[in-house]
């Protein structure tokens, strides 16, 4: 009874106060949350990296475009049998041998057929090549895309970066995808920018561990052992 008289009102007041604080906190928190924050980022979202198509394509074109010259016919119609007739009489003009002539004609026809055949097969092979090339291209683009995305994510451009700058870097990889080296082959003129690009490649390598590279040896050799990257900041606001 005494306790209630002494502490009843304070207890009620204290509980009311805490309930009020809790309610205000919860409600205030939510109200703040309701407002959608529309902040357009001042910073750039850009495609920063252009993976250059590897320049020299050392694809061994197995079939040269020019058909091979027909081999000289084995039967040469011109061997002058001089020693045979040391001094023939003037009337002894070598008469074309009918046999030889026939064989030459036959040979020519055969050659032509062969050539036709060869041309056709070349065309076929070329077609096949084109199809295969597109698959390889797609593959290459997938890997290249992954690499460039990783590097873009790792790239923090220096404040001095401008839209018209571009730096070209050569990147060397091992077949396992480890980074061997990166160097600037074409400077942007801004050392900080070049350095940031270089750092981005190294940082991406560190984060990823190894770059994704195609398992096919030939593809790797062709496109990934050495490749160049073009760094250019685009859509900078300044």
């Amino acid at each position: 009874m005494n306790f209630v008289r002494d502490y009843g009102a304070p207890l009620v007041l204290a509980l009311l106060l805490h309930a009020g604080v809790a309610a205000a906190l919860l409600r205030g928190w939510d109200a703040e949350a309701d407002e959608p924050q529309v902040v357009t980022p001042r910073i750039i979202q850009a495609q920063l990296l252009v993976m250059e198509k590897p320049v020299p394509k050392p694809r061994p074109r197995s079939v040269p475009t020019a058909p091979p010259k027909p081999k000289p016919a084995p039967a040469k119609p011109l061997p002058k049998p001089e020693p045979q007739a040391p001094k023939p009489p003037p009337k002894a003009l070598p008469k074309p041998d009918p046999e030889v002539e026939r064989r030459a004609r036959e040979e020519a026809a055969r050659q032509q057929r062969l050539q036709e055949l060869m041309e056709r097969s070349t065309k076929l092979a070329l077609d096949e090549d084109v199809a295969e090339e597109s698959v390889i291209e797609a593959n290459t683009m997938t890997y290249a895309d992954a690499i460039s995305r990783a590097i873009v994510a790792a790239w923090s451009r220096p404040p001095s970066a401008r839209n018209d700058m571009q730096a070209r870097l050569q990147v060397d990889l091992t077949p396992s995808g480890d980074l061997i080296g990166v160097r600037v082959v074409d400077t942007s003129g801004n050392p900080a920018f070049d350095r940031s690009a270089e750092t981005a490649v190294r940082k991406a390598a560190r984060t990823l561990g190894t770059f994704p590279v195609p398992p096919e040896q030939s593809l790797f050799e062709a496109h990934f052992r050495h490749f160049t990257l073009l760094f250019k900041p685009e859509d900078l606001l300044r």
Partner: protein
Amino acid sequence: MNEPLSILELVKGATPLVLFVMLVLAVASVVSWVLIFQRWFALNRVQREMDDFEDEFWSGIELHKLKQEVDAQEEGDPTGIESIFIAGFGEYQRLSAQSGADPDAVMQNVQRAMRVALNREEERLARHLPFLATVGSTSPYIGLFGTVWGIMNSFRSLANMTQATLAAVAPGISEALIATAMGLFAAIPAVIGYNRFAARVEVLMKRYEAFTDELTSILHRAAHTAP
């Protein structure tokens, strides 16, 4: 998860230890507020009673009559300044009723009785203040402990991830910081209340002592002038 975390979610998601710390702090906060209100009312009442009593005391009323009034109006034990008056004057009445009492001995007893009453009153005024002091000084540390523990946990869970993102640690840290906020929320009113009430208790005690001295001198005069 683009909507901000609600504070309730954060509290619910806390680790058990942090939750426990929060609970302790919430209880400490409620209790300290109860005591703050209680002390506030109690000290106000004590002051009001003291003002009333002193008005009456200095109105030239007979001390016998005053004692009867006080005895009559109090249903229980007299409190505050009245209890000091009753203790001192009651002792004086009892001793001086005995014939042949030495005035100095009477006054010594009266003073002792009033000192005891004064001590009891001081204890009554300053009740619960140590609790407020304790809450005020320790609850920030308790909250900090909860926060450190929560942050420790959230960083430890970060260690298992391959990619360290702010999103992975932010909820944990936010949740842990609630403990510090609660600690401060409990501590600040307690500290303010403690300082305020300690000062008021001191003022009241000064007035008790002054009253004690005045009553002593009045009774001293009465004892020595009495036949």
